[in-house]
């Protein structure tokens, strides 16, 4: 069944190969400014922070989506035209963002809380261009998600796609975990992208019509969008792990009642966990805050007990074929687990009171995004290229890549965790004397991040050879 839009993944790999190192360099720049180096370039800190955040969130939503879209072709037929449209629309959105940040110095941060984009001191045109870029990306991704849902619906009814028949003990028709998780993730994606549309409309009403919005409402809608899109990106990464890992372990990983139950629970929980972003907004109803803590806690159960435990069960004492792809998937699961621990700790209201908007926050989300989702996605990319190119693999250089990524990645993250525990705020271009300890952590983090970048460049060299060979063979 694999053909529609199959080769669009080659170009998604190229996009990631181009954008990811640039965005890492922007991140290193930020940590160097915070460490007291590059003071001459300090005025770019907040625009770069905005671009780094938007770029990384967008990249690690679309890249796993491209993998999932590719993997789904084993079972359903997504539109090839829509797959290319998604790539084109995303590139256009990125170009618009680059213009509004580098020419317009737009710097509202990646979750752009109302009304900062309208009161930040940058030219109004850059805010307008930012809203246009968001619209382009939102509409593109919405169409992409709807097309994938359409493709699933052509073969599976909604109840089958969500594996409800497993809940009552039936196993026919068989639904691969990939289809189940894709359906859950795409429904969540549609909901959060609709929320993004609402945010853009309300911003536009203020920008062009002077119609003010309620700041608490806007914060809720914005975080609903922001939290859900990041959360579901992780689930999209998990979906391809379910699909690919069994081929390395030589064991099946199938849907059963527990898997069906947990992913249906995820579909409900994912909409409520975002409340933890508003714990420090005491005007939010108190009950909602406790719902946020409960939902955040509960969301860890399906991930840890079903997916991660299931993956470990799959691999334990199996005839695992270790190569760069399977190692990256495996390490990605570990990163998800460790980042999840950091997230659950921070989602405790009492802890959040002293961790909110300190560096503990980027610590945990960088853990599951960088050492979780990004590694899973890079694993899929390598797997895809290696499957097509079938080239011999060098174990020594493989371990060099993995070691650099592990030491660089976790060293970089540890600096965030320690600084967060020591109350260093996030999103500060320069640390005032009271929290000047942040500068030391930032300097060390920049060095570790450079090591990770080196590991990624070596990964690219490995993958690039296979990418180019496979592309020449297919053409």
């Amino acid at each position, binding site marked *: 069944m694999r053909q529609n839009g199959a080769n669009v993944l080659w170009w998604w790999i190229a996009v990631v190969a181009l954008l990811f190192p640039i965005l890492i360099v922007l991140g290193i720049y930020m940590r160097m400014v915070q460490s007291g180096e590059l003071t001459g370039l300090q005025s770019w800190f907040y625009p770069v922070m905005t671009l780094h955040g938007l770029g990384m969130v967008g990249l690690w939503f679309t890249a796993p989506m491209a993998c999932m879209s590719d993997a789904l072709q084993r079972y359903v037929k997504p539109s090839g035209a829509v797959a290319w449209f998604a790539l084109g629309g995303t590139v256009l959105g990125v170009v618009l963002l680059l213009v509004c940040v580098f020419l317009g110095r737009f710097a509202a941060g990646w979750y752009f809380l109302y009304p900062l984009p309208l009161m930040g001191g940058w030219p109004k045109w850059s805010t307008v261009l930012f809203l246009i870029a968001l619209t382009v990306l939102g509409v593109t991704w919405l169409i992409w998600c709807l097309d994938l849902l359409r493709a699933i619906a052509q073969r599976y009814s909604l109840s089958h796609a969500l594996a409800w028949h497993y809940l009552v003990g039936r196993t026919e028709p068989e639904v691969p975990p990939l289809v189940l998780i894709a359906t859950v993730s795409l429904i969540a994606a549609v909901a959060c992208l609709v929320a993004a549309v609402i945010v853009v409309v309300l911003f536009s009403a203020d920008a062009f019509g002077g119609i003010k919005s309620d700041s608490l409402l806007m914060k809720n809608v914005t975080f609903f969008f922001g939290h859900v899109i990041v959360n579901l990106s992780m689930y999209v990464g998990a979906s391809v792990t379910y699909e690919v890992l069994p081929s390395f372990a030589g064991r099946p990983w199938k849907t059963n009642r527990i898997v069906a139950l947990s992913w249906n629970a995820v579909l409900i929980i994912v909409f409520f966990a975002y409340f933890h972003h508003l714990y420090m907004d005491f005007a939010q109803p108190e009950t909602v805050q406790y719902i946020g803590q409960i939902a955040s806690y509960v969301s860890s159960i399906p991930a840890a007990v079903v997916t991660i435990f299931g993956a470990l069960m799959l*691999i334990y004492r*199996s005839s*695992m074929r270790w190569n760069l792809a399977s190692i990256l998937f495996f390490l990605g699961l570990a990163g998800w687990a460790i980042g999840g621990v*950091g997230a659950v700790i921070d989602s*405790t209201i009492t802890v959040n009171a*002293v961790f909110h*908007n300190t560096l503990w926050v980027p610590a945990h989300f960088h853990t599951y995004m960088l050492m979780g989702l990004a590694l899973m996605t890079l694993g899929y990319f390598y797997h895809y290229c290696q499957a097509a190119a079938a080239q011999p693999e060098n174990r020594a250089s493989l371990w060099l890549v993995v070691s650099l990524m592990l030491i660089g990645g976790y060293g970089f993250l540890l600096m965030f965790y320690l600084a967060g525990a020591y*109350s260093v*705020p996030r999103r500060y271009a320069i640390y005032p004397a009271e929290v000047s300890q942040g500068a030391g952590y930032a300097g060390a983090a920049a060095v570790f991040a450079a090591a990770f970048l080196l590991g990624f460049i070596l990964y690219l060299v490995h993958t690039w050879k296979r990418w180019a060979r496979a592309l020449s063979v297919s053409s």
Partner: protein
Amino acid sequence: MRMIVVLLLGVTASLAGGSSAVAADESAAASFQRKCSVCHTIGDGKRVGPDLQGVADRRPQEWLVRWIMRPDQMLAEKDPVAAQLLAESNQIAMPNLGVTEPEAKALIEYIRVEGAAKPPAAATEMPPRVYPEPSLGVVQRIALVLFLALSAAITVVFCWVALSTRTPQALDVTEAYRLRKVFFFIAVGGLLVAFAASVTKTPYTEARARSDRIVYVAARQFDFIFSLEPIVSVADLATVPVVKQLELPVGAAVEFRVTSLDVNHNFALYGPQRRLLAQTQAMPGYVNRLRVRLVTPGRYEVLCLEYCGAGHHLMQTELNVR
């Protein structure tokens, strides 16, 4: 009441030490407070923009009037002094605040008189502050140790599973499912204990307790304003007495009623040991009540922990507990 309040009244000039010129021009003081004090001080040091003490002597009157009225136009014309100020202010451009010519002239006069009434900045310069080594709070320590311990456990389990693939054998699915059940109950039990232990002492339950003091806080780009009456709009700055130096008694339970006059901010209280003690968001149109008992004497810093624009990291103030 041990609270020592220095009132910076927009309508009086008591701080200026009998400066009758300022007292006579109430509107200039109010204008300065409303439009200029976010970024400038007169003799209290650099903020986002330069300290304005003596500026009326350093720059020609016509240049100042034009700069106050149309900074955007002067920047667009690449006025060399304007360009230099922009560079010195970290590329944060002075906004066009819609100041009229008479208002600009009154402001310059106010700055001149206020500046003359104060000793030169060098005379009031404080010796460098000595900061204690940063330390971990109880909650932070527990969270960090728990995180490191669980991360280490995850690492061990993953290593064990990876190494197990050296000796492949068929999986005992029944045993694995039994283990999963145990893991499920441990995870749920752990989360229930964490919830029960943490939920009794949240900032919301704290906020309901009785307070000894109420302090109003209005946040704006890039400044905190303390007052004893609510400030809910920029217009209130001209009428509500603000507290310039806030001092509070040791052991007092203080309720901070926090709002914002522009964008989302945050009111984060750092104790004398440089630890974050408590925080709440400052939101336009809402008041968040943060109750804190100040048990340790010393200087407390207030930082903004919600990104609010180019001067975000400069947004801070302090209070003293004695």
